[in-house]
């Protein structure tokens, strides 16, 4: 099921489903311990550790960061400093599907922004609120994906779609919504 993303009359967002992105706190601790152990509890591995934690939970919840700090025996300040520095790390939850629009040069001059606008409009998100309230989609731009020959490019969950247009972009999203809605 997927929410219809419509706003009701009171202006609140109708959220029909909210798939929990992160596991139960206890499970979360176990997962973090496993990841940190795998890297030998070495604080130099902080970046790959956070990458794996994010892969696990789709974002970096603050308590997970505090736990990483504890397990690595470093100050939370250091973990937060690193987690907020790199663009890949998300402190806020991300959607189940990640729609990334390449805004590299080649894509840009071939009009990537209208595609972004169209997809955002369809999903009701913007730059400051990139995730749909039902946590199904996150739309973001990404620095060059290096697939410039296919510009403009949209990447959905690591699948690259080339030679996009606003209409194709919206169609792509529609097909995913339909797939999610299918029983």
């Amino acid at each position, binding site marked *: 099921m997927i929410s219809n993303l419509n706003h009701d009359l009171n202006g609140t967002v109708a959220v029909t489903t909210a798939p929990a992105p992160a596991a139960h706190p206890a499970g979360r601790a176990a997962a973090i311990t496993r990841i940190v152990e795998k890297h030998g509890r070495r604080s130099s591995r902080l970046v790959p550790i956070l990458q794996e934690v994010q892969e696990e939970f789709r974002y970096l919840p603050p308590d997970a960061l505090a736990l990483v700090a504890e397990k690595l025996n470093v100050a*939370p300040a250091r973990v937060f*400093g690193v987690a907020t*520095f790199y663009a890949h790390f998300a402190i806020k939850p991300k959607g189940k599907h990640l729609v990334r629009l390449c805004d590299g040069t080649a894509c840009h001059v071939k009009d990537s922004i209208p595609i972004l606008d169209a997809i955002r409009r369809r999903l009701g998100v913007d730059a400051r609120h990139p995730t749909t309230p039902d946590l199904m989609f996150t739309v973001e731009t990404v620095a060059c994906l290096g697939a410039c020959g296919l510009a403009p490019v949209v990447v959905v969950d690591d699948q690259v779609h080339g030679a996009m247009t606003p209409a194709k972009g919206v169609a792509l999203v529609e097909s995913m919504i339909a797939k999610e809605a299918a029983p």
Partner: protein
Amino acid sequence: MIKARINDLPVEVPEGTTILDAARQVQVCIPTLCKHRDLLSTAACGICIVRNKGGNKMIRACCTPLENGMEITTHDRDIVEVRRSTLELILSNHPNGCLTCERNGECELQKLAADFNINQEAIKRYVKETPPDTSTGSIVIDFTKCIKCGRCIQVCQEMQDVWALSFLERGINTRMAPAGDITLAESPCVKCGQCSAHCPTGAIVENDETQTIWEALHDPNKVCVVQIAPSVRVTVGEAFGLPPGTNLTRKLYSALRRLGFKAVFDTNFAADVTIVEEASEFIERFAHKRGALPLITSCCPSWTDFMEKNHWDFIDNFSTAKSPQQMLGVLAKTYYAEKLGIDPAKLYMVSIMPCTAKKYELTRTEEMYASGFKDVDVAITTRELARMLKQSGIEFLSLPDAEADSLLGDYTGAGTIFGATGGVMEAAVRTAYFYATGKKLKSLDLEAVRGLQGVKEGTVDINGTPVRVAVAHGLANVEDVLNRVREAQKAGKETPYHFIEVMACPGGCIGGGGQPYGVDNERRQKRAAGLYQDDRDKQIRCSHENPEVIRLYKEFLDKPLSTKAHHLLHTRYTARPLYKR
């Protein structure tokens, strides 16, 4: 040695000297905003750029070592123009609120803007509105005024090993803040205030409570009394243009009376009491084997906070003796009030401290209310005192000398050196030696524990047993010392130290977070020298010989570590592993 030329002047400096430092040797001042004399260069502001002959790039003087044969130009039209533009950029990201800023007149950014004659705003201002953090009651962070120089973060992380502050995010959104969208009070902050002492602008300042005091002074129902901490006497003069280390004890007594305080006490007196209690505690543990060794000093509130958060396994080793501030507070509202027949409920105790954490100490535990009231009502820093004096219309420096009020005013040389790192240890050793041997130490000067080295060690022979002492200041220096103790304990070996003194701030209280701005090692040395001079000038240099202290025990407390003394003068500690590390 490196030989080079700066502005055509020959210079010769040891290898590794930065261009910035080398230039000073030929009386060339390269402006900088982020570089602090004692800290590592953060290379953040870009103001100190200079040019080397033949190079088309400008290089940062703060972090570039001078090399043989360099021909450095520090000032020409292009360089100054780049500096100006950079400064204008920094100003465009800073609120234009100088007139209402706590740092007004003492701000490094303001000074630079004046030096560069910046008289218009060419670049549109962009300041992201962020509410200040007032959560600690000790330190206030105004994020909008932060220029991201990184000094406070370096101080917090490396000098103090506290890790309350860090840089978050990046680019134009880069901000200095407690990590994880929490308040400073929720962070590992120990309120030492070193961040504020090193901040070049008004982004981090003490929580100014001068208005509270003005109101108390004007309140007819309050009897305002005041105490001044050991180190304040040798630093307050800096705010009035005097060199660091100038001892203004008697002028301060005088000034405080003029401000309207009914009685002026000296925290040094309480320091002597602290020593009597703490030395007795030491003898208990050392000679009578009752209690854990090493004994660790506890008069620094940032240190006790740090210990409770990070090294709570040493709680049993902590001296339970309260800090001098709290001892004086409780004695004023009991002993003094009793003697003079004043209603302690009306007594309003103000303390003037070198320290931002002292504000936090006032309500640290229920023992801080041992008199039945809040023992010390408000604590202000040296900086706040200077501000009050300037407001009051008193010509501070021309005042006649005065004496402190008796009962809680007399002090010894041992009490005064509390303000410098190693001072508590030295004072305690003087008294403990006497307690253990019945004799006075041959030389009262314990040189081994003086000075600015991060960890100092010494040995004193007491009745044939070498007593090993260690002194650490700057919290980052603590861990090593404690680990040595832990390792010995684990290995079942004898403790490497019997007595440890820790002060959170480098240099001890004379380098406290609430002292006049512009602290560096040179100033720390001069301030400490002022205190040691005061010690030398004193006829009585051992706490237990202080006649008023003797009277206090005789007439009120009975003897050191008595039940009454325990009730009034001692405290407890609780493990608070908020942040496991």
